[in-house]
């Protein structure tokens, strides 16, 4: 399987780029590489021999039915699985060619931002939420400048600039989720992970966040988990389809959605299950 995905991956995506107007060059360097990843909760294996690469400055989507292991896979990318007792992993994940498991975990997590399924602002002011990461990690830039820049990048600045000292809980769900994105961006991560960031949001907030992601990917490598196939088709450059813990297919997004190689992928994207 892993050989097959690598092969798929290296297929030049030339004709596909026209379809969405995105440059789909596969010459972009790899940011992260997952190879032969197996993952267990206790005795139960939930990921089987997964290998895939995350391309720099591109948006990679992980799709699949509930329980297929896509969130688990995402959480291994910033070692968040280590907070769970009984979780065990073998295989290798690298960031810029260096194994992520040999680094100090807190140092490492600063380089990987994460946004969760449910907006999880801290019970602090809007400003303090965004400033949280820079404060604990230290920053050379003035805090207020960094907070403003992060809120602008998350397309939230205009809505909150006059109420930075209000509680983050006073924002709407969609604003809270963008605040969480701003909070993650304030640490200036190299990779941004998003775990179904729109599943708790209304369509308008979802559209805003999708638009934001498309803007962000020029400056940040993004991996997003979604069970909304339309969302994956709209925003991502590469899509990985997972089923029962195995990677079934991984290709440039237009290719996966128009000419899937595996019959199971086709069955899923045409809505026959999941």
């Amino acid at each position, binding site marked *: 399987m892993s050989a097959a995905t690598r092969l798929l991956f290296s297929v030049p995506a030339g004709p596909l780029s026209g379809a969405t107007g995105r440059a789909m060059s596969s010459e972009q360097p790899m940011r992260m590489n997952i190879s032969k990843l197996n993952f267990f909760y206790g005795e139960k294996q939930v990921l089987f021999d997964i290998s895939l690469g995350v391309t720099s400055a591109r948006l990679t989507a992980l799709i699949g039915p509930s329980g297929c292991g896509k969130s688990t896979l995402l959480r291994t990318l*910033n070692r*968040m699985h280590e*907070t769970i007792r009984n979780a065990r992993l073998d295989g290798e994940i690298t960031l810029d060619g260096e194994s992520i498991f040999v680094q100090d975990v*807190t*140092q490492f*997590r*600063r380089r*990987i*931002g*994460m946004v*969760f399924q*449910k907006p*999880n602002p*801290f*019970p*602090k002011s809007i400003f303090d939420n965004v400033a*949280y*990461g820079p404060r*604990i*990690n230290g920053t050379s830039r003035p805090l207020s400048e960094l907070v403003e820049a992060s809120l602008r990048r998350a397309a939230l600045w205009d809505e909150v600039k006059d109420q930075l000292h209000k*509680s983050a*809980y*006073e924002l709407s769900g969609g604003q809270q989720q963008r605040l*969480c994105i701003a*909070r*993650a961006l304030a*640490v200036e991560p190299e990779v941004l992970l998003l775990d179904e960031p729109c599943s708790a949001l209304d369509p308008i907030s979802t559209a805003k966040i999708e638009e934001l992601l498309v803007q962000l990917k020029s400056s940040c490598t993004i991996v997003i988990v979604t069970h909304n196939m339309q969302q994956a088709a709209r925003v991502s450059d590469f899509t990985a389809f997972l089923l029962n813990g195995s990677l079934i297919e991984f290709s440039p997004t237009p290719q996966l959605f128009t000419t899937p190689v595996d019959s199971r992928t086709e069955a899923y994207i045409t809505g026959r299950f999941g």
Partner: protein
Amino acid sequence: MMTSRRNPRLLWRKSLSAVMLSLTGVCAVVAVSVLFLILGYLVLHGGRSVNWDFFTKLPAPVGELGGGMANAILGSAKLLALASLIGVPIGLLGGVYLAEFGGRGAGFIVRYAADLLNGTPSIVIGIFAYALLVLPFKHFSTFSGAFALGIMMVPITLRSTEEFLRAVPLNLREGALALGASKSRAILTVVLPAAYRGILTAVLLALARVAGETAPLLFTAFSNRFWSPGWNQPTASLPVMIYTYAVSPYDDWHRQAWAAGLLLLGLVLVINVVARLVLLRGAAGRRS
């Protein structure tokens, strides 16, 4: 309709329902009225003795009318303050351990021990403090009384801290960890602030609980007719004063005991109301 109204079974069920309903109502009224009866009794008997002298003067010598309980009021305040200094940090950190670090084995033991300590009769805790801090120094002291009260505060603070920390959503912790916070940093900067209102409420309720304790003070802080000269000397306190005055043969002392009871009840009431307000404001803030 007519037939069912004449149905004897239905009639029986309806009258039984009416009887039971009034019975539960009466019991509810009795439960509440006990509190108001006590309050009314305290006001009736002690209300007149709650005056300026009561708050500012030392107890009058035996046989003289008047005097106050200023030393007992200050003594109770000192005892409660020192008890909090002893009990709250231990309870708080223990609660953090249970909620954030405690494994199954150690966590179970700590939790179970705390529950047992919570059920330990207060006089036993008094004897413990007596053996530990009074006997070796050969005199009663404010410190030993505060130690006994502090021990009583530990399990209440510990268990409620644990509960309130557990109620903090997991995704807040994960959010902090994902930003590169260490576990201790996440607890200190995100989890504890998210739970502080609940913890503060628990501390206030623990304080209210021990404020009226008499037994642990009888042979630790003992009592004092005068200002307590220091932390290592015996001190008067409201509950012990109530006990001493209530069993005395003097009418004036009885009145003052009622007044002290009124003051103590008022204090507990105020603490409870404040605790509830703290919690309510927290809940309101989180909803919006």
